[in-house]
């Protein structure tokens, strides 16, 4: 009997020793990140290069701007802004991104090499329904994302994109123009008052967008920019779980690094919002 107990205890002690583990350490090495959007009809003027950051380190520090890189688009070398380190542009402003064209981005910096490719969507035109350019729109507080629309914007028959981005940008976002709305439903759907930002951004996969209270946090002039986005953008957005504003993106579209390199074709309407 004693032998049996000793044997059982021996087995248990061996198992317990096996059950102890050392803490795992993982050292993340920062990666080169490129962000840039080629806009149909516009010069190439804002390709940014930064380094990603370890989670316990400060971000947006000057040393995270990736300066003096060799940045090329379709073989054309981009220059770095002298007063904005890490931002690159093509000096010939007559050279503009064109719908239907494919652009290949390549970046070399030290041992790092990354590239990505985008095809600019076909020219895009939208039609606002019920309002015209420069009209005044009355703001009516809603209760959810799906509250009644102030107006609709449609683009029937356009097939150049799988995802559309809608930017609502207040031209004058001074505090006196801010729409104070701290109702519970506003805090649920728009976020805390201090978290409301300009511009606001939405995405749809349809041929229309219903513009309602969710699109506005300031009164005054607004630009509503609807952009048909390229396949890079579509892939990138599809890698993000619903509602996770800052979560992981599982679909990286830049080979050798991180970031969002895409292209778009846009149309804009201006409206004047009053409370």
């Amino acid at each position, binding site marked *: 009997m004693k032998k049996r107990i000793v044997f059982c205890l021996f087995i248990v002690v061996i198992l317990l020793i096996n059950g102890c583990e050392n803490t795992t350490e993982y050292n993340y090495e920062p*990666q080169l990140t490129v962000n840039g959007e080629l806009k149909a009809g516009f010069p190439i003027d804002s390709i940014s290069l930064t380094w*990603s*950051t370890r989670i316990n*380190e400060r*971000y947006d520090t000057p040393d995270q701007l990736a300066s003096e890189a060799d940045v090329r688009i379709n073989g054309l070398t981009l220059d770095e802004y002298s007063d904005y380190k890490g931002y690159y542009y093509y000096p010939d402003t007559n050279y503009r991104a064109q719908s239907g064209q494919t652009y290949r981005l390549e970046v070399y910096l030290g041992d790092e090499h990354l590239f990505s490719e985008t095809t600019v969507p076909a020219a895009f035109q939208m039609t606002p329904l019920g309002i015209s350019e420069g009209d005044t729109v009355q703001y009516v507080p809603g209760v959810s994302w799906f509250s009644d629309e102030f107006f609709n914007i449609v683009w029937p028959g356009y097939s150049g994109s799988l995802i559309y981005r809608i*930017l609502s940008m207040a031209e004058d976002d001074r505090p006196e123009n801010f729409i104070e709305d701290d109702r519970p*439903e506003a805090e649920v759907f728009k976020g805390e008052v201090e978290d409301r930002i300009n511009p606001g951004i939405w995405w749809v996969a349809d041929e229309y967008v219903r513009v309602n209270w969710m699109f506005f946090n300031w009164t005054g002039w607004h630009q509503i920019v609807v952009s048909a986005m390229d396949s890079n953008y579509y892939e990138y957005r599809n*890698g993000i*779980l619903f509602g996770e504003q800052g979560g992981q993106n599982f679909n990286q579209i830049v080979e050798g690094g991180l*970031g969002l390199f895409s292209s778009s074709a846009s149309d804009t309407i201006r409206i004047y919002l009053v409370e």
Partner: protein
Amino acid sequence: MKKSLYILILMMCTSTAFAGASISGFVTDSTSGEGLIGANIYLEDNRIGISSNMQGYYVLHPVPAGEYVLKVSYIGYKTVSLDIDISPDEKMFLNISLLPETLAGEEVIVSAEAVTRDREVSLSQVELTVQTIRQAPQLAEADLFRTLQALPGVVAESDFSTGLVVRGGNTDQNLIMLDGITVYNPAHMGGIFSNFLLDATKDAQFVKGGFPAEFGGRMSSVLNVISKSGNNKKFSGSVGISLLSSRLSLEIPVGNGSLLLAGRRTYFDKVLALMNKEFPYYFYDFQGSFYQDLSPYDRLTISGYFGDDVLDWNQLSFNLDWGNRTISGNWQHVFSPQLFSNFMVAASNFKTDIELGGDQGVNSKNDVNDYTVKGDLSYIFSSRNTLKFGFEYKKLRFEYRDIYDNRILFRLLQQPSEVAVYMQDDWQVNNRWIVKPGLRVSYFTEDKNEFYLEPRFAVKYKLRAGEYLTYASGLYRQFIFTVQDEYNPNFINSWFAVDQTVRPGLSVHNIIGYERELWTTTLVQLEFYYKTLENMLTYREQRSSVDEELGTDVKANDFFVPTSGYAYGFELFLHKKYGRLAGWIGYTLNWARQSLDDYSYYASFDRRNNVDLLMSYDIGRNWRFSFRFNYGTGFPYTPIVGSYLESDDRLDKRRVIYGPRNIYRYPAYHRMDFGFSKFFKWLKLEWQFDIQVINAYNRENVFFFDPDYDANPIELNVIPMLPVIPSVGISTRF
């Protein structure tokens, strides 16, 4: 083949084919008429003895002609001794009622338990009575799943989940049944309460692995919750009120049977409204059964459950409706003393319906329907050999619909059928050996149309009185599943069926156990287990789990990738069932690993060390103290290791970067709960007053880390589990 099968069944129905006298009948509680599970019936001075089955039925066969003393014993009841005189080939039908006895002597208990242990292979099996469940300290009210989570080999996903992680398996790998009917999501929203109403529950049988051939369709464990039949002697009931909910049960004798009705409703909504806070959420459960004894050999039962979680937040145009419904008709028939049967027709439904934004908004619906026909038969060759066999047919229907602005974005409709037949033998070879071989054959229509063989085997060897060695092994298939998301906590488990693009889950169990009685009422069990798990599904990393227009022709591999894994470990269970001090200490040492695309990692619920102490102590003067302590090493998680700038036109934000899957671990989990109960009489009724404290020292256990992007550097805020929560409740029986 068909002819020989027919002859076999005919021979079983006409017991003259196996000549000999027999004594059979039902063992019931004399005050309620409730069948007693596992009562011991034996002939004194003779080696013939047996335990009653789930319905309280027993048969002693063959019994040589003569005069005997028949003894019937059951824990908590007075032992009955009857003088009987049986003639050759006599089929004596004898129902026995036992009288409850508060002060059952421990010797009686021990001897009764010992008889059962000598006859049954119960490896990895735990039977929980309602009394045991009620004795554990709980939030607001006793809950079966919370008690199960205190068993060795079982861990909880979190304080907000009643899901059972059994020996490293996922929560969908447990077959959870209410009277044999599958219940798909047995928890209310937030996971704090499970569905089952203890006032309507008689017993719960839980098998952590190596389960026999009568159960199938899941890879890890089986939980069968058995409802009360209802009191057929007198009108009775109970009422309970706590800070969060109220409950009521009634048992009404009707004809040759009884009607049982039980219900519960929470009132978070009303309590918060009093505090000028709006959270219009509540849930309710209703459980009922009605039975009639048509003859001494026939019982018809109709039972049902329905429960709903309701969130009507009209201010936000947000409505959520989530619930389970089951209904079943059950015919229990004794064909002959040796052939006992149970046939069931049942339907089970689980649905979620989430609406946001009214007609033009989002509507997400999920419906799971299960229509089952099954038959379970037992042929008792002798008190040493019982053959169980049966069939099960399930017609399943899973539907998912995402509607936005009155337009279907995504629809998945699966309508598979699952068929199974099984046979298993419980054979006590001699006084030392019991073997339990079995075979289950399954067929599932949505996959590659194959028959699947699932052999099962268990054996028990008696080393000496009260000391046993056991071994069990088996092959287990699973055709429907929920999906493990290793990046986000799951709040709603959605069920899917395998199709031709993914293989059914497959698990092989191997368990070795050692069991020994210590002192008079205490049992120590040691078990070593190893199980493989193949074709578990997880989300494809490359695809968002929602928010995409996928259309209607969706296949499982559009969303999911199969992972495989294994789990092994060791469990120690020291269980004192009876006496002034009762409870258990459980310890589990477990490893659970998974692999995906050649990358191997710890499973999300790989808890290396877990200790549970659960006890209740009768202080005296009608006071009882209950206590639970749980310590578990941290679960693995996938850490956020970095962040990068994402610039989308004029909008900059930080997007996080995850490290390799599950390489870090959360801090250890520990929690202490305790409670005091006072029993007293008032207004000629028996009352119980409970005061309980959950997480008594307010340990901040980590649920997950939530990044705060406004901070620089990004801060990972702890989202904690339950804080310290006191609660009081009062209940009475009449």
